[in-house]
Each structure stands twice: as structure tokens, then as C-alpha cells.
């Protein structure tokens, strides 16, 4: 089989945000695209932290916000630092985020992924669901020439294959393009979607109409490195945790027990009173960022989205869907140009990497490459949450008739109690400044 005999110009594996964006870009450039999805519908296998930052959709559709299947637009965003008995919350809201082009939206992936795949189909891509791509097909030189699927006569050929098959990245791993999966590079996200009447959600979270809130949580994960999140949908709220995989495995604590403990925290429980579970779910998250990313282009093959570890896990930013869409569009565009030039070798597809470096996908990842390690570091995870809560508590505790201590005295006292050396504290602050500058 030669390249020119290929059945399709491109086969995209996985109709998640990366795959649908890639298929859309290829179809719009006039190429034949097969978009394969192993679920019964796009989104059936997908779980995430609940918020999509949609500006990347400007490249998909003008005024996308008028038809995207949104739950709520996030106008209020809070960061909560928890200990067992304390909570420090920084709470921000903006009216600007409540009107177009908006900032973040909550959405269910079954709705969003189906919508985005529909855009690819409208552009001319052929979507086939309920079909697993089990292996890459390669010629004698090792070049990828198609995929094998779990259907009768299931060898399909293409000039380019774009693997957007998610965090396990089975296609590229089996072929040796991606090294074996390391638990240390992954976190387990587990969440409960909880039913509450819409007006109860509005009242408890201080929202109205289609306004939404998103809270990220540091601490409250049973001593396992990670974090939590709580956000509003139309008539449900989602509470979830993200847990370092090696630490979860070593903890002896079950994931649902971590959520149960967080649910019972006094700062969280008041939001959830009377709620019933609508759906429990879990998914792995690639958290290692830039330094763990595999090579992204090969002869006849591109990798995009979580299959290439593209979720940005940088503490206050946990973003994946926008990175997947940005990478998918770039992959589809680069594949289209390579097909037109008649060269889909690794060299011909190198425009993909250049496009990613020129836009936010690799620029953000590269700039924040040290953030995942900082966010998961021991002091930040286990010492600073209680350190900062105790500092604020002593600041606001009125100790009459003892005179008020000065802030520096308080800081030194709290540091001593938590065995935090000032040297380490200053060092960590400087490190954070360097990581996020």
C-alpha cells in the first residue's frame, strides 16, 4: 500500500475535544477525515474538572457562546485553603465574565463533546462511534499508514493518523512512540455530581440566571497531595478531588472516602445539604506537564490532547479542554498542509510543533513547566494550608486583656509552631515567583 492509495486523507482517533478539533480543521481544509470514537457517543468516556475556558472556540465558530451546550457561565471564582477545622477563602466575582465572550463555563462532557464532534461532522468529517482503534498500522519503514479497528475487515488506511485517544494513549504506547505510563505523572480525578434545586443553588452560591461559581480547594484531601473542586451546574453541583496517584495508592484511603470527608467539612457541607448523588465518576489526569510530554510528530502520526499529556496542572490553573482544542486545531491544520504538500513524514508534519510553540498550548506549558512539582511539593501540600489558616486565625482572634501582638511576632510564632523555617518560607515564595513570573 502506498501513501496515495490511502482510503482517507486522515484518520483521527478519539472524538474528544482534541480529536474533534483536528477533524474539523482537516474537513474545513477540504480533506477526507474519519473520526473514530470508542464510546456510543462522543463524551461517553470523558470526565473532567467541570470548567471549560472557551476563547479558543473563536477559531471554531464566531459567536460560539450562542449555541454551546453550557450549564452556567462562571462569574464567581474562589480559592479555598482548608484544614480539618478551618477555611480561608479568596472569593472573586466579575460582571464582565457574565457576558460574551465570557471566561469559563461549566458543561457536561456528554453535551460538550457531542456538540464539538457535531461541528466536525457539519464541516464534512465522517464520525464513526462504538469503534475502538486497537493498533496503529505501519509499513516496513515504521511509518504509520492507518489503524486497525475492532470491526470486521477492520484495517483502515490514511496519509496521516492523529492519535487523540486520551490519557492512556494506548495507540502510541503500544507502538513505542510514548514511554510506559508512570503513576508519578498522573493524578486520579474523582467526582460526585449532586442534585439540588436550581433556586437552592442560586441562593447558596449567590448566583442568578445562568451565572455559575467555581471553587478550587487546597487541603481537604486526607493528606494525599492534590486538591479539590466544587462548581455549579444548572440543577446540580459537582464536588471532586484530584489525588496524586502514587500517594493515593500508598495512603490506604479509598477515593470515595476522601470525597466523603471533604463533603463533611464545615465550609463545604453547607453548600451540599440535602443533595443526592446524580452520578459518580473518575478519570486519570496527566499532570506532569511540559517536561513529560512525548515527541508529538512522527512519520504519518501526530499526538494531541491528553494522549500527549497536554493538561495544564499548575495549581490555580487546571485546564485541559482548551489545550486539547488548541492542539487539535493545530494538528489538523498541520496535517492538512502536509497532505497538500504531499509529504506526511515527520519532517512534513513538523509544522505542528511550530504551531503549538507559537500559540498558548506549548507557550503556557513551557513557561509553567516547574509548576506541577511546586504545586505537589510537601510543604505546599501539608504545611502551608494549616500555617496560613493559623496565621489568619491568630490575626483575627481578639485576645483581650492581652495586648495585640504585631504581625511579624504572629508570623514568627505560627512559623515556629509549624516548624517552618523562615529560610524555607522565603525560598518557597521566591520559587513560586520564579515559576509563575
Amino acid at each position, binding site marked *: 500500500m502506498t501513501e496515495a492509495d490511502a482510503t482517507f486523507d486522515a484518520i483521527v482517533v478519539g472524538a474528544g475535544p482534541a480529536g474533534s478539533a483536528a477533524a474539523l480543521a482537516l474537513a474545513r481544509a477540504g480533506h477526507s477525515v474519519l473520526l473514530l470514537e470508542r464510546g456510543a457517543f462522543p*463524551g461517553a468516556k470523558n*470526565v473532567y474538572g467541570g470548567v471549560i475556558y472557551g476563547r479558543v472556540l473563536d477559531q471554531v465558530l464566531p459567536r460560539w457562546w450562542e449555541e454551546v451546550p453550557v450549564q452556567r457561565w462562571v462569574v464567581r471564582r474562589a480559592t479555598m485553603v482548608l484544614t480539618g477545622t478551618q477555611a480561608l477563602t479568596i472569593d472573586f466575582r466579575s460582571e464582565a465574565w457574565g457576558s460574551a465572550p465570557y471566561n469559563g463555563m461549566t458543561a457536561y462532557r456528554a453535551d460538550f463533546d457531542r456538540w464539538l464532534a457535531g461541528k466536525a461532522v457539519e464541516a464534512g468529517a465522517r464520525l464513526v462511534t462504538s469503534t475502538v482503534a486497537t493498533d496503529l498500522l505501519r509499513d516496513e519503514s515504521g511509518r504509520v499508514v492507518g489503524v486497525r479497528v475492532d470491526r470486521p475487515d477492520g484495517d483502515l488506511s490514511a496519509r496521516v493518523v492523529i492519535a487523540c485517544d486520551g490519557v492512556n494513549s494506548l495507540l502510541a504506547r503500544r507502538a513505542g512512540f510514548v514511554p510506559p505510563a508512570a503513576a508519578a505523572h498522573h493524578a486520579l480525578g474523582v467526582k460526585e455530581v449532586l442534585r439540588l434545586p436550581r433556586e437552592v443553588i442560586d441562593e447558596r452560591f449567590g448566583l442568578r440566571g445562568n451565572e455559575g461559581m467555581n471553587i478550587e480547594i487546597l487541603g481537604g484531601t486526607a493528606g494525599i497531595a492534590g486538591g479539590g473542586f466544587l462548581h455549579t451546574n444548572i440543577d446540580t453541583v459537582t464536588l471532586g478531588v484530584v489525588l496524586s496517584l502514587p500517594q493515593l495508592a500508598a495512603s490506604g484511603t479509598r477515593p470515595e472516602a476522601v470525597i466523603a470527608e471533604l463533603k463533611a467539612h464545615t465550609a463545604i457541607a453547607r453548600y451540599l445539604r440535602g443533595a443526592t448523588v446524580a452520578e*459518580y*465518576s473518575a478519570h486519570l489526569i496527566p499532570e506532569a506537564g511540559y517536561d513529560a510530554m512525548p515527541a508529538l510528530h512522527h512519520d504519518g502520526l501526530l499526538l494531541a490532547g491528553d494522549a500527549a499529556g497536554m493538561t495544564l496542572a499548575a495549581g490555580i490553573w487546571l485546564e485541559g479542554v482548551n489545550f486539547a482544542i488548541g492542539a487539535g486545531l493545530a494538528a489538523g491544520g498541520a496535517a492538512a498542509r502536509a497532505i497538500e504538500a504531499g509529504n506526511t513524514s515527520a519532517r512534513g508534519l513538523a509544522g505542528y510543533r511550530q504551531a503549538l510553540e507559537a500559540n498558548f498550548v506549548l507557550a503556557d506549558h513551557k513557561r509553567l513547566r516547574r509548576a506541577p512539582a511546586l504545586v505537589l511539593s510537601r510543604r505546599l501540600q501539608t504545611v502551608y494550608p494549616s500555617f496560613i489558616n493559623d496565621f489568619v486565625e491568630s490575626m483575627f482572634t481578639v485576645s483581650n486583656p492581652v495586648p495585640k501582638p504585631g504581625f511579624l511576632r504572629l508570623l514568627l510564632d505560627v512559623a515556629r509552631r509549624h516548624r517552618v523555617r523562615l529560610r524555607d518560607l522565603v525560598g518557597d515564595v521566591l520559587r513560586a515567583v520564579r515559576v509563575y513570573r
Partner: protein
Amino acid sequence: MNCYPLIPLEGLMSTVNFRVGKRAHIIVDSSVCMGCSLQSCVTACPAGLFVRTSDGGILFNYEQCFECGTCYMVCNAEGAITWTYPDGGNGVVFHRG
């Protein structure tokens, strides 16, 4: 430790939709597990599908699998878990993921 009504895992799992296929997409070789002192899969699998048996092995059922990959990533024994996706259209169906 706070007092709270713990929802048993079975209650949570009953909220999840599955289209169970005939083929077991994950196979666990319990004879390998018998030599494993950690058995991290028992702790980490979010669906709680790995159960210790009285003889020190592992009992596994693929039917309510989230297809997440946690088990093979935390497993430290070569060859204990053979991991694939269910056949097309089968397996977990998340509606609010």
C-alpha cells in the same frame, strides 16, 4: 474525624450507567497478585473492583469499570494486569462527566 453519613460505594456505583460487554477487557492474574504485599489496586481503583481473597490473591470484576487506567499504573507487578478498552460501544457511559 467528622461524623457524616458515608454513602457506601455500592450506592455511588448505582448512579453510573454501564453497557456490559461479553468480553472481559481487563484480566487479572491472581497468581501474580499473591506475591504482592502492596495490592495498591484495592485502595486506588475508584470503582472498588479489586477485592482481596482469603488466599492472598485478587478477585476482579470488569463489569463496572470506569476504564480509567488507575489499576495498571499503580500495579508494580509485571504481568498481573492485562489492560484493554472494552469493545466499541460497550463499557461505562458517563452522562455528566
